[in-house]
């Protein structure tokens, strides 16, 4: 790069007559849709970070038991409502790796609270890859190895313990299993129903379209939560936690599909008139094939974006239901079930750490929102 006397810049590299001017642009034009979308998506830093975070979070779900130092329903009867313990590295200016100070509890007979005192003279290093309570890794491998646990005679409550002396950190990581997957199952149900009804209405039109459209309008005009409440109240109380979990996710999905069906229907109405659809029909393709092979792929990407925007609504829905005691029930552990304990003012005032599960909820919901926004903006790579 050199500067000419009149202030312009000129490239010093020798001119290569062989170079094709078009190569650079060709590469872009040949790029597949996925590459273009990825290029655009990469520029949304917030969406990228959120996507990565969610990917890691979902990847870690099978290993919740490994990360948690305790099992979710393990009780420590002499450590009720223990405050969060810090993991320290230096003891009296000397480095001895991650360790905790053992805590002992004492009943204060004036306030009727447990008072915890840390013994700051005895640093006890954490153990790694140690043996603890038995759990199932990824659901089927029985093991008792934990990433870290407290040494003999000490406890490690990173985020404190709750009213029964259960470790909040362990419960949050176990709770992620249910709280995060509830959205996935719900969205599957909602997708199946939404795409089926939306495409039938949009493709066939006529009377069936009218009926489906009215159903959509009615369902959309009703407040979701009272209906969720009513439906979950109908779940028999003698069902096991797993069955309740599935039925709750299905309930969340059942009321979510009308919005999706509406979008699908609108797309179908406009795409139905396209020439390639006409051509496929004339070649004798069945309506099912036209819908699946020719129409749906056209806006699958939009559907994915809208899915990532409705998953958080379901996560919040599960939390709300469990919080009210109509969703998942103990011994199942989800973030909503945990917050059920933090329902009264006393816990917020005296034991604020019991409300910690609200942090992962807020973070996950935000991440899904950012990811959805980023996807929506980048899915149409040809608009500037």
């Amino acid at each position, binding site marked *: 790069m050199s500067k000419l006397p009149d202030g312009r810049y000129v490239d010093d590299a020798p001119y290569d007559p062989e170079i094709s001017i078009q190569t650079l642009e060709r590469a872009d034009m040949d790029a597949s849709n996925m590459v273009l979308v990825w290029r655009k998506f990469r520029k949304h830093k917030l969406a990228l970070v959120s996507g990565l975070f969610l990917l890691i979070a979902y990847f870690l779900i099978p290993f919740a038991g490994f990360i948690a130092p305790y099992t979710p329903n393990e009780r420590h009867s002499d450590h009720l409502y223990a405050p969060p313990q810090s993991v320290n590295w230096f003891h009296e200016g000397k480095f001895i790796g991650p360790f905790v100070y053992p805590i002992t509890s004492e009943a204060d007979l004036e306030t009727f609270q447990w008072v915890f005192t840390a013994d700051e003279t005895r640093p006890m290093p954490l153990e790694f890859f140690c043996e603890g309570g038995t759990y199932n890794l990824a659901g089927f491998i029985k093991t008792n190895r934990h990433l870290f646990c407290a040494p003999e005679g000490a406890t490690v409550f990173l985020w404190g313990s709750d009213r029964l002396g259960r470790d909040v950190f362990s419960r949050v990581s176990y709770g992620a299993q249910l709280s995060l997957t509830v959205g996935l199952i719900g969205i599957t149900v909602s997708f199946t129903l939404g795409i089926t009804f939306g495409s039938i209405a949009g493709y066939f039109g006529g009377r069936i379209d009218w009926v489906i459209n009215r159903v959509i*309008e009615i369902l959309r005009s009703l*407040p979701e*939560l*009272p209906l969720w*409440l*009513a439906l979950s*109240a*109908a779940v028999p109380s003698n069902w096991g936690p797993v069955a309740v979990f599935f039925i709750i996710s299905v309930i969340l999905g059942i009321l979510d599909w009308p919005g999706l069906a509406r979008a699908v229907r609108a797309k179908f109405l406009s795409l139905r008139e396209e020439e390639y659809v006409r051509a496929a029909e004339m070649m004798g393709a069945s309506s099912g094939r036209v819908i699946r092979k020719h129409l749906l792929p056209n806006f699958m990407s939009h559907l994915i974006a809208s899915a990532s925007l409705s998953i958080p609504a379901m996560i919040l829905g599960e939390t709300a239901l469990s919080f009210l005691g109509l969703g998942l029930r103990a011994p199942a552990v989800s973030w909503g079930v945990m917050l059920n304990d933090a329902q009264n003012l006393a816990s917020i005032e005296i034991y604020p750490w019991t409300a910690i599960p609200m942090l992962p909820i807020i973070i996950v919901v935000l991440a899904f929102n950012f990811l959805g926004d980023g996807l929506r903006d980048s899915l149409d790579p040809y608009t500037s």
Partner: protein
Amino acid sequence: MVILRYALYRFGTMLLTLLVVSALVFMIINLPPGDYLSNQISELRATGQSAGVAKAEFLRTEYALDRPVYQQYLIWIGFIPGPHGFSGLIQGNFGWSFEFDSPVAEIVGDTLWLTVLVNVSAVLFVYLIALPLGVLAAAKSRTWVDYTTAFVGYIGLATPNFLLALIMFYYGHKYFDIPIGGLMDPVFEGEPMSWDKVKSILVHLIVPTFVIGTSGAAGMMQRLRANLLDELGKPYVETAIAKGMRPSRMLVKYPLRMAFNPFVADIGNLLPAMISGSVLVSVVLGLQTIGPTLLTALKTQDLFLSGFVLMFVALLTLIGTMISDVLLVILDPRIQFEGRET
């Protein structure tokens, strides 16, 4: 006149929708196996209280619970005569609450008006907050004003309503001395309306309104900003600025009016979400609205009480949506009168 006709048409469709909703509601509340009375009867049998059993059996025939479900539904609505002739919802008889052992109308009573009050004030709050902030965020897009409002908006969207309620509950009381819990001072409960009572209700409304409205306001703000940004890029805006119009005047005079329609139409999406929110928040804050009643009724399978509450909630939503539809037609004459889509 045309508008009147449209309003009538909308009212008609609302009634039809309500009818479908009532069937849906009745189906849902009948889903749980067993009902309140048979649960109670078996409980009384187990403890050997025969007097109670007789009363429960009496109630069962009294409220036609021994008939097939479709007949129960028709009697509940008031289309066919029950044991006492026509006395269903459309005749103004809301039924009997088994759990509280008194008529439904007596239990819900005042809470209906307080529910309407809470929701209306929350809707007003949403519009009052979302309008200025959304316009500001669009006008100053990509500055710190925009980013701050976006950040606050996202937090508002992501925080579950009931958590916000709990947090406000605590900090509002601790630092601002806002009275919390309930919708009025306990001394005014059951008292006739007076100026002091109104004042007390207004002060108690602050926290619930804020909590219920936040997420709605956040969503609406984002949509208003997006709409306004679309309009701001159009040639007529450039023309107006080139002519030498003051930016603030230009903004209010042209693009804002264009971006306003979706703002009004949005109430159809807003209202269901708000009413959902108000049910939840009422439970947490202990407001005397319909929310806590619904929860108890659902948990105890109190058939008529939960049915009535669900119907009322649906009615509230449908009326709100209808008003917004009619308002939209008055605001924008281009909108077709025969429904919103073809």
